[in-house]
């Protein structure tokens, strides 16, 4: 078996192995075992997509030609990784929250979802990446030809065949694993896993060759260092502008290359992985570049003059008879090339299908967008075609350029082209004032200058750019010569192009941004991007129908409130016959939901919100979430206001009632006062009159004197009684009276009352009839107060009973829970219209017989209330009947 056949066999086996790895990873991902697939280590390794065959082979070539310059290609990305905290974290957060699918998507999304910008960046990426893919094919065919040279050689036809088979194989792999699903976030578990494996192969291969060279050939580290010092680039010598410029360029490329953006931002599964990658990826880069110089030095030493230094990694072990090591090295280079092509194809195809094919397709089929399944199929097909197209474009470029040029230079040309995206990208992330027109102007200016000064000349003088332009400048203007713009000569061609393109790019980006005014959507997106850490929590991924329903649920809850939203969703889920509480987002349901939301936020907003979540993004969901939050807050606020105003009106009503009561009380008080003063004034008047008579009359009979004095005495007594009563009433009414509770029989109390009140001053005798046997009840109450009530009632009977022979019957009855004592006289009773008033203060039945102040019954009622009983007037056919009720509890307590 020839070496070449062995090589083909190894290659095939390796590719099959990659298929298996990707397949297994996809299977695991489908089973939900993502934790292992998406570890920080895998993320870090997948970043190594930055190191292509160009770095694998080309770095050694570059070191052999230009000394340490190759290091700059790794120093730039290292600095970017060290800037993870303020740069990459923000970039990834933006990518996750805005569901960015590519660098073109990022730029377009930031600048108001501009499809023109997206298409522009896509074209730029395709132009920049195609030579790069060609480069990978070239490196693989070159490495094939190295092995073939040992046996029977490899003709140009064979080389082309190798490149074709390789590109076909890669296209198949990418279509198989790169377009499996159409997640909003373009994640490819199988591909990422395969890349991680390839990253390990690359590193192990290069480290093995390095270790072999240093310890196997040079004989140890110190010897290797001495050998380096002794070699042709023994002294530090490097183009200073290239050193600084290339560090910048590689840093920019690391951020802007479609394939690195793909793994760095789009495939990122967890922001915390960045924390590990921030130091682990610089370590990877450090290890990859560690042995480049020793390999180059040994290669220059061992290999014959004129041999291609780009292939030293392969040829040195071969020349030293280490076939196994050479095979490993070949696999490393093969890995670098294949992984780059795969990821670049995925990234580019996403961009091409999303930003070029789909807009055109939708324009050609205006009705197509309404059928969602249709679009999905169309997108997938567009993506597959794009993948094949991108890979084949690379193959065509390879066939047309047919090798020759040093590998590294094409890479740097591509870097410079894609770096034109950097100002718009960083400006969009950190400057809210950056506008779409500014980004467009900057990109156009940078792209044009790059095209004119670097890309077109890279095809070789006289191929694309006519010789006349190169020698005399555009339109014969010497200051427009592609290698010496504005007459500045002596600069390295790459640095010249980089300087002018970036300068014009940044200046036009900033100037136009300052002068133009952004659209509302742009300004919204600008705020979202620049203040990403204020607007977003950790982004959630959205996928499939349930996620959509969940998002609708979240939104509905924010607007309708949790309970109502859940009820609504449950109702529709039941109606649809779906299991669980989430209905499928069918048109019917969406319409109902929209109506429901419309009642809270208005129809137009509701329509926009539902439309945004279910498709046709024009404003991102987060914005609507924010709007929903605000609406919810406003609704809550107005509900609170309503509540408060209700409370206020309740309070006002209470206040009005209280005021009415107070007014009534005030009137009562006035009446009371006027009555009091009237009652006090009458005796006062007679006292004053009679005392004046006594004072002023000189001759007065002793009889008259004594008569007048007794009148004054009587009136004074009446006054005293009135004041006593008033005092008593106020004490009882205010509840200040202390009850003197003690045991005693009802009979003794009645005896006392009858004795005190039975006979008045006027000598009228009242006959009192009692059933003494029934009165033998022991009471526990304030006996003095009770007696006061009885005295009052008996005295009233005596005073008002108008019968010829007044008689009062005191009847005592006892039932389950009370004792009832009736005072029934045989008089004419109280007129029905007066019954209501007799317990009021100063109420008197008749003026003629006014013996007291009219406070007696009022006091009685107050006292009985205090004792827990009552006193009432019971209408009866004959005579007045007062009924005193004592709660039996008081009586029983004493027994």
């Amino acid at each position, binding site marked *: 078996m020839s070496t070449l056949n062995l090589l083909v066999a190894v290659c095939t086996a390796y590719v099959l192995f990659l298929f298996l790895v990707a397949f297994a990873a996809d299977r695991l991902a489908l089973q939900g075992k993502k934790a292992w697939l998406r570890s920080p280590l895998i993320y870090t390794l997948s970043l190594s997509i930055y190191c292509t065959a160009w770095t694998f082979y080309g770095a050694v070539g570059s070191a052999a030609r230009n000394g340490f310059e190759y290091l700059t290609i790794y120093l730039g990305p290292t600095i970017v990784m060290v800037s993870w905290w303020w740069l990459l974290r923000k970039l990834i957060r933006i990518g996750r929250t805005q569901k960015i699918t590519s660098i073109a998507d990022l730029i377009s999304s930031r600048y108001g979802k501009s499809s023109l910008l997206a298409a522009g960046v896509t074209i730029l990426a395709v132009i920049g990446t195609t030579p790069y893919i060609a480069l990978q094919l070239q490196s693989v065919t070159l490495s094939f030809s190295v092995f073939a040279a040992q046996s029977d050689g490899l003709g140009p036809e064979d080389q082309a065949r190798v490149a074709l088979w390789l590109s076909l194989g890669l296209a198949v792999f990418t279509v198989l694993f790169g377009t499996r699903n159409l997640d909003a976030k373009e994640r490819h578990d199988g591909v990422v896993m395969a890349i991680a494996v390839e990253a390990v192969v690359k590193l192990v291969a290069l480290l093995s060759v390095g270790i072999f060279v240093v310890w196997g050939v040079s004989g140890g580290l110190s010897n290797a260092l001495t050998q380096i010092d002794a070699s042709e680039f023994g002294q530090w010598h490097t183009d200073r502008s290239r*050193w600084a410029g290339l560090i910048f360029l590689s840093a920019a490329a690391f951020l802007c290359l479609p394939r690195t953006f793909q793994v760095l931002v789009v495939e990122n599964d967890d922001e*915390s992985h960045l924390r590990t990658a921030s*130091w682990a990826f*610089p370590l990877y880069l450090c290890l990859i570049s560690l042995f480049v110089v020793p390999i180059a030095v040994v290669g220059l030493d061992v290999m014959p003059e004129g041999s291609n230094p780009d292939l030293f990694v392969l040829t040195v072990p071969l020349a030293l008879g280490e076939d196994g090591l050479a095979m490993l090295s070949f696999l490393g280079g093969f890995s670098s090339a294949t992984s780059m092509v795969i990821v670049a194809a995925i990234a580019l195809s996403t961009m091409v299908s999303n930003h070029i094919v789909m807009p055109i397709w939708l324009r050609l089929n205006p009705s197509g967008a309404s059928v969602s399944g249709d679009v999905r199929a169309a997108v997938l097909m567009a993506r597959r075609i794009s993948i094949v197209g991108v890979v084949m474009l690379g193959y065509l470029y390879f066939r047309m350029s047919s090798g020759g040029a040093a590998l590294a230079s094409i890479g740097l040309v591509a870097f410079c082209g894609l770096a034109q995206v950097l100002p718009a990208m960083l400006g969009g992330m950190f400057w809210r004032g950056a506008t779409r027109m500014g980004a467009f102007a900057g990109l156009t200016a940078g792209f044009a200058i790059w095209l004119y000064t670097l890309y077109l000349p890279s095809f070789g003088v006289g191929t694309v750019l006519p010789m006349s332009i190169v020698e005399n400048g555009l339109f014969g203007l010497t200051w427009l010569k592609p290698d010496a713009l504005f007459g500045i000569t002596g600069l390295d061609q790459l640095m010249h192009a980089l300087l002018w393109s970036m300068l014009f790019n940044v200046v036009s980006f900033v100037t136009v941004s300052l002068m133009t005014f952004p659209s509302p959507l742009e300004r919204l997106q600008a705020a979202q991007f620049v203040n990403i850490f204020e607007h977003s*929590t950790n982004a959630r991924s959205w996928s499939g129908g349930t996620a959509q329903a969940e998002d609708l649920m979240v939104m509905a809850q924010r607007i309708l409130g949790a309970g109502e939203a859940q009820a609504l969703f449950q109702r529709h889920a039941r109606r649809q016959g779906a299991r669980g509480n989430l209905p499928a987002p069918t048109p019917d349901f969406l319409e109902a939901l929209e109506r429901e939301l419309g009642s809270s936020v208005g129809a137009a907003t509701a329509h926009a919100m539902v439309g945004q979540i279910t498709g046709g993004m024009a404003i991102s969901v987060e914005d609507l979430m924010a709007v929903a939050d605000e609406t919810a807050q406003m609704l809550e606020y107005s509900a609170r206001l309503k509540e408060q105003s209700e409370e206020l009106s309740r309070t006002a009503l209470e206040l009005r009632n209280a005021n009415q009561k107070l007014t009534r009380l005030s009137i009562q008080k006035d009446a009371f006062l006027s009555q009091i003063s009237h009652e006090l004034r009458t005796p006062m008047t007679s006292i004053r009159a009679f005392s004046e008579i006594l004072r002023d009359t000189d001759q007065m009979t002793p009889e008259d004197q004594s008569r007048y004095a007794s009148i004054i005495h009587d009136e004074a007594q009446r006054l005293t009684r009135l004041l006593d009563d008033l005092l008593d009433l106020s004490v009882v009414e205010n509840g200040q009276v202390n009850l003197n509770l003690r045991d005693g029989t009802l009979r003794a109390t009645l005896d006392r009352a009858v004795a005190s009140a039975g006979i008045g001053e006027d000598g009228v005798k009242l006959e009192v009839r009692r059933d003494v046997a029934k009165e033998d009840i022991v009471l526990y109450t304030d006996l003095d107060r009770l007696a006061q009530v009885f005295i009052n009632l008996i005295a009233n009977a005596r005073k008002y009973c108008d019968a010829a022979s007044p008689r009062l019957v005191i009847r005592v009855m006892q039932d389950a829970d009370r004792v009832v004592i009736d005072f029934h006289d045989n008089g004419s009773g109280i007129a029905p219209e007066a019954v209501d008033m007799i317990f009021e203060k100063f109420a008197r039945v008749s003026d003629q017989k006014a013996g007291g102040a009219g406070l007696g019954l009022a006091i009685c009622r107050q006292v009985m209330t205090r004792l827990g009983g009552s006193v009432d007037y019971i209408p009866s056919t004959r005579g007045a009947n007062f009924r005193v009720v004592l709660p039996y509890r008081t009586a029983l307590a004493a027994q």
Partner: protein
Amino acid sequence: MNRTTDRPGAPTVFHERRTYRRRRVMDAARVAPILVLILWMIPLIWPQTGDGTVSSATALIYIFLVWAGAILLTWAISHLLADEVDEPPDSES
């Protein structure tokens, strides 16, 4: 970022010691790339002709030592900021 997420109103002048340290670590994370860049720009001022030129081995060792230092520094910072990244971002203010 920590400053911008502070709620409006009177800004807090004094923070708890731990918060203060964490913010300084964030500052360090911001300036670290500048330091690394400056160190890697040092070779620009090395003389390229005549006496005092730096030998390739020395240059190589210098660049890789800076590299190792950058890796260690980033590793340390990333561990000190672990809580910030792994927890929801609101926890920092």
